[in-house]
């Protein structure tokens, strides 16, 4: 495989407005050479806008786009040397697969033998070496996206931009292609920005995940950190499932939740200003033990949802009737049939408080 460009990307203070709606507000993100950053957020959060600004497809914005130390804000899309894969199938319908992959080199006036050889090399990389002569409509959705990936990489782009490339695919192909993208990205080492609304996808593929909400980058950190140590309540609530448990602030560093003392983690929002709030605890941070119906953490099991290796258990707290979700290995969940009385224990080392 030919050596790819390894460049750094810095987006600084990007702001983009559509009419009255602010799509991006003071958006800053540094991507190290060869790193894969995933922007994660619900639709309309501005993640695609950020990617399109980096690609040069959206030019009406303020802020700086620095690629390898050079501001490219004024450079048109076709001069930025970006490889892009779109959510919609975007292969050129009148060209063969090989011609599609070679297209970027063709417009750069690379001679035919060279560009065809390079295109073939990329097709081999994405596992479609035999499909060069076919037309786009003769390929499945997953294959079309692989070709689009090969086309994006053929030009040895400065940055690879993936705009929800897996959204249109069915679940099985999506997982397969996701792993494939990660493998290829690691192999070629191209700096990559990946945009998705799928948390699992972002967590699985990215070196760092940037969580976005209402045009603001709330946190950008390795997937484990985003999940285990969310920067603030918004990130905590958006990423993964979360229970909100009534909590009482007993000291600047401790909370009392259903009679149990738990360490308080102070997020970006600062120390709590109220005496009570909602403690954010993940379903797998709660465990169950058989109980006798007394005590502040007493609950009744109301439902079990079997999810393969894990089972999601819904319990109703005896004291305040609130419903909590607990996630535990299915083998252990067999001990807790619906209707049984249990005690809920919190196993989190520290929790965030929503106040």
């Amino acid at each position: 495989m030919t050596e790819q460009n390894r460049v750094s990307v810095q987006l600084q203070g990007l702001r983009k407005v559509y009419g009255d709606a602010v799509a991006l507000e003071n958006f800053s993100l540094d991507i190290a050479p060869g790193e894969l950053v995933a922007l994660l957020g619900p639709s309309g959060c501005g993640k695609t806008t950020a990617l399109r600004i980096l690609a040069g497809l959206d030019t009406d914005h303020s802020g700086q786009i620095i690629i390898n130390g050079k501001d490219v804000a004024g450079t048109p899309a076709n001069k930025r040397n970006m490889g892009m894969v779109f959510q919609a199938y975007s292969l050129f319908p009148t060209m063969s697969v090989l011609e599609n992959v070679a297209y970027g080199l063709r417009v750069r006036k690379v001679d035919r033998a060279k560009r065809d050889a390079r295109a073939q090399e990329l097709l081999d990389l994405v596992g479609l070496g035999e499909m060069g002569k076919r037309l786009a409509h003769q390929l499945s959705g997953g294959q079309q996206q692989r070709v689009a990936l090969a086309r994006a990489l053929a030009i040895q782009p400065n940055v690879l931009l993936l705009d929800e490339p897996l959204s249109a695919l069915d679940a099985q192909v999506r997982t397969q292609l996701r792993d494939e993208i990660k493998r290829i990205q690691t192999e070629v080492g191209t700096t990559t920005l990946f945009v998705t609304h799928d948390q699992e996808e972002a967590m699985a593929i990215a070196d760092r995940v940037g969580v976005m909400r209402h045009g603001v980058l709330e946190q950008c950190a390795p997937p484990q950190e985003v999940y285990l140590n969310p920067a603030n309540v918004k990130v905590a609530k958006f990423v993964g499932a979360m229970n909100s448990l009534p909590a009482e602030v007993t000291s600047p560093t401790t909370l009392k939740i259903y009679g149990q003392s738990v360490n308080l983690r102070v997020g970006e929002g600062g120390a709590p200003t109220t005496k009570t709030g909602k403690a954010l605890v993940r379903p797998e941070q709660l465990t169950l033990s058989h109980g006798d119906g007394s005590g502040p953490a007493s609950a009744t099991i109301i439902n079990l949802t079997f999810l393969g290796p894990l089972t999601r258990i819904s319990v109703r707290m005896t004291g305040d009737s609130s419903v909590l979700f607990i996630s535990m290995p299915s083998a252990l969940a067999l001990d807790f049939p619906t209707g049984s009385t249990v005690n809920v224990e919190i196993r989190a080392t520290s929790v965030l408080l929503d106040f």
Partner: protein
Amino acid sequence: MKRKLTPANYLALLAATSFFVFPLIAAFEFSLRVNLGKSHGFDNFRWVFQQEGFKTNLGVSFRLALLTAVAVLVLMVPTVVYLHLGGGRWKRMIEFICLVPLVVPVISFALGVGTAFPVFLQSTVYELSFLYVIVSLPYTYRALDVGLSSIPLLTLVEASRASGASMRQTLLFVIVPTIRSAVNGAVFLAIALSLGEFTLAVLLHWDTFPTWIANISQGHILNAIALSVLSLVGAWLVVVVMAIAPKSLRSNKTQEATS
């Protein structure tokens, strides 16, 4: 997806085809009559070729058609693409402008030429091409509009731009090949209109193939019909060549690419 035709579809198709085909067959049969209709032969066609001005005027009409076709391609394809990509607010207005030639009488155009066209343009027969572009606007615009509406234009353009292509390369390599049948349709309409247009040429005092036919056919009705049949067949041949040529060129290219 291919749909199976029902007998009723076939019947409708047959009726519509007959509507066009019978007059043509009748005209062809009529043009073959010699000896006051007592026998058939190609004398009327031979007569046409022997007339003075046949080649010259046919040549003029073909050149006009070619120029019109090129002008339509260069002017209309980028314009309609622009309207589809981001010129949304202009679309209504341009759509309206493109319909104007249908309601404005041709004589107004002819008069307008005298006041609006620069003199150097008025002194050449090729001024007709510019008018033909205008007169064919309702058809060419519609053909391209429908073609572009049927493809994911924005995605293709962005994919091409992101690959490093300029807008010109995107038009030539991606858009035009993708909407080739629509482009062919637009060009065909422009060519057919140029080859058959009579009123503007007469009003502006230029000799083209249609005006020449009108002139020489006065008093030679059988020959006139032969001429009409000839010009019709000629126009169809041009269109057939246009429709087939790019495809065969392309398939040769693909073979080269993949061999």
